């Protein structure tokens, strides 16, 4: 029984490193405990449901919650905008035309033929 348990919790060796999720979980629990202890030293003046908990949007009025939800298309807008050149190229590649799909297959096959010294 003990042998089976020890096999269960054994560390995974990856050649140059190791990984044991159980040790990781213990470490995370300890980290959370430390955070909790530090938090308990915090200011105790916080009062729920008062002005303190209201969102401050640079003096602007708060919209209804349904209108505040950020839609998927707006997330990572900056990232997508800065990589527009790459996305334009990728969009051109994804034509949706099945003939183009086959063309890519032929191209890759050609490259493999060259690599193998057939062509």
């Amino acid at each position, binding site marked *: 029984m003990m042998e089976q348990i020890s096999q269960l919790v054994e560390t995974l060796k990856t050649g*140059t490193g190791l990984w044991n999720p159980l040790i990781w979980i213990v470490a995370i629990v300890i980290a959370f405990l430390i955070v909790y202890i530090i938090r308990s030293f915090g200011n105790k003046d916080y009062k729920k449901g008062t002005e303190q908990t209201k969102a401050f949007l640079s003096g602007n009025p708060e919209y209804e919650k*349904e209108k505040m939800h950020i839609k998927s298309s707006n997330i990572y807008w900056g990232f*997508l905008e800065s990589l527009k050149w790459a996305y334009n190229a990728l969009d051109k590649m994804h034509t949706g035309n099945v003939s183009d799909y086959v063309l890519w*297959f032929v191209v890759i096959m050609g490259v493999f033929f060259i690599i193998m010294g057939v062509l």
Partner: protein
Amino acid sequence: MSIEELFNFLLDHSPALIVAIPLLGAFLTPLVGKINDKVRNAFAILVVAFTSFLVFLLANDILTNNTIRTYVFGAENAGSPIVRILFEVDGFSAYMAIIASILAIAGVIYAWSHMKEHTGQDKFYTLVLLMIAGMFGMILTGDMFNFFVFLEITSIAACALIAFYTNKGKAVDAGFKYIVISSIGALFILFAIGILYSQYNALNMAVIADSITFSFLDKIALVLLISGLAMKAGIVPMHMWLPDAYGRAPASVTVILIGATQASLYGLFRMVFSVYGNVFSSIDVTKDTVINTINSVNSVGWMLIILAILTMLIGALMALKQSNLKRLIAFAALAEVGYMLLGVGVRLASKVSQDITIAGETTTQVAFQGYSATALTGSVFHIMNDALDIGLLFLVAGAIYLVTKETSLNKLGGLARNMKYTTVFFLIGLFAVSGMPPMNGFASKLMIYQSTFQLNPIIAIVAILCSILLLAVFVKVFHSAFLGPKLPSLKDVKEAPKSLLIAMGIIACIIIFIGLFPNLFVENIVTPAANAIMDSAKYITAVI
């Protein structure tokens, strides 16, 4: 007959039964469907459950005893394997069969509620069971032509299932694209099989592997096999069919389709490491091909690494842009295929030969760098993890569609308030697919990163970057679909039906179990599977 004798009988005939039972079940389904829908659904689940039981029975025998089982059709013993269809099941086949059975069982349980409102369910279950039979056939066969036949069965069934929503033009379009791509890929594979047959007068994989000389024609056949199977596995830039197919098929089909795609990847592994084992796996310097082909092996390895990097990068970047949930997950699935391919590339790129002088005598040594075995093991491990993680995310997407009738992330929000269990399952899938500790995806990716780093640190950095991108992708999904206030249009949304939750729960539990105890899994299942694929000589001697 005692229970032990029954078990032994089932074990002896399991390679054939694993294919025969779903095949027979497929043709019986329309008949059973005449009784009523519930009986038919239960029948389909029973067929897949019994098949899975046989898979686990067979896998347990093969992986614990580190053996290879052969099953010859039409003969008591192997006899002349050249003229008979033969199934050859080694550790790697058993491992892939386990993956396929988990996906199959989750898929059919999920379909019970997911397909409830649709007509044509008799056809649906018939096709699902046919696809499962084809998938197992591809994995278990030791015959090249038989492999092609099962590939075709899988493709035709998958095409019809992708286009199952015939009232939606895009689903039919995706099905059409899939069958065109599959047929072209399969035809080139058939052409390659023809070339090998003309040279060696054999269709058995082990017999061909024993004779292969890496002649000009062998090289042509290899290119055709790699290209055809890579396209079926959805490797960039031959991946464009995959987001269409995964995105348009019903979720219960998509999860089994992942298994079918991985069966093609299995084919790629089998062809490269077993059929062409004399070239790619062997380090026996007495064989001319081993020394003379090292440059070719390295070149193929680097080509696969480049394709793997492209697959990871393009998959992750395109996923980040998507607003359609299923299409987004499909691109993420693509990125995950890149990790599996990377391990194969690293293995091949690390084959070296060197002249060593001992006591004035110079000898040539051929070897693989030590880290390459870890790379391939990580890659094999990641096949399982990807199937589970991506499978779970597709099931979540299907559950969301079932209750909201929406796949556009722009129209979703606040689902965590009404779909608590589904949210938890999504979070498990999110962490797992992004390779976050302590989930299963982390363990396999760590093995791939560390071994790849030793070959070239930049490749490892790109792989890690892609994983971070995948995390960003699914954080976006989590925020868009699950967080935020209840949207007015989704106020009455309820939790997913029980059968969907059970299917998601099965996969989530396996993900957590593998995540918490990776070594147990790697030592007992993954390493025997990886060793089986690396040892081509054993594969050959099991038949000859």
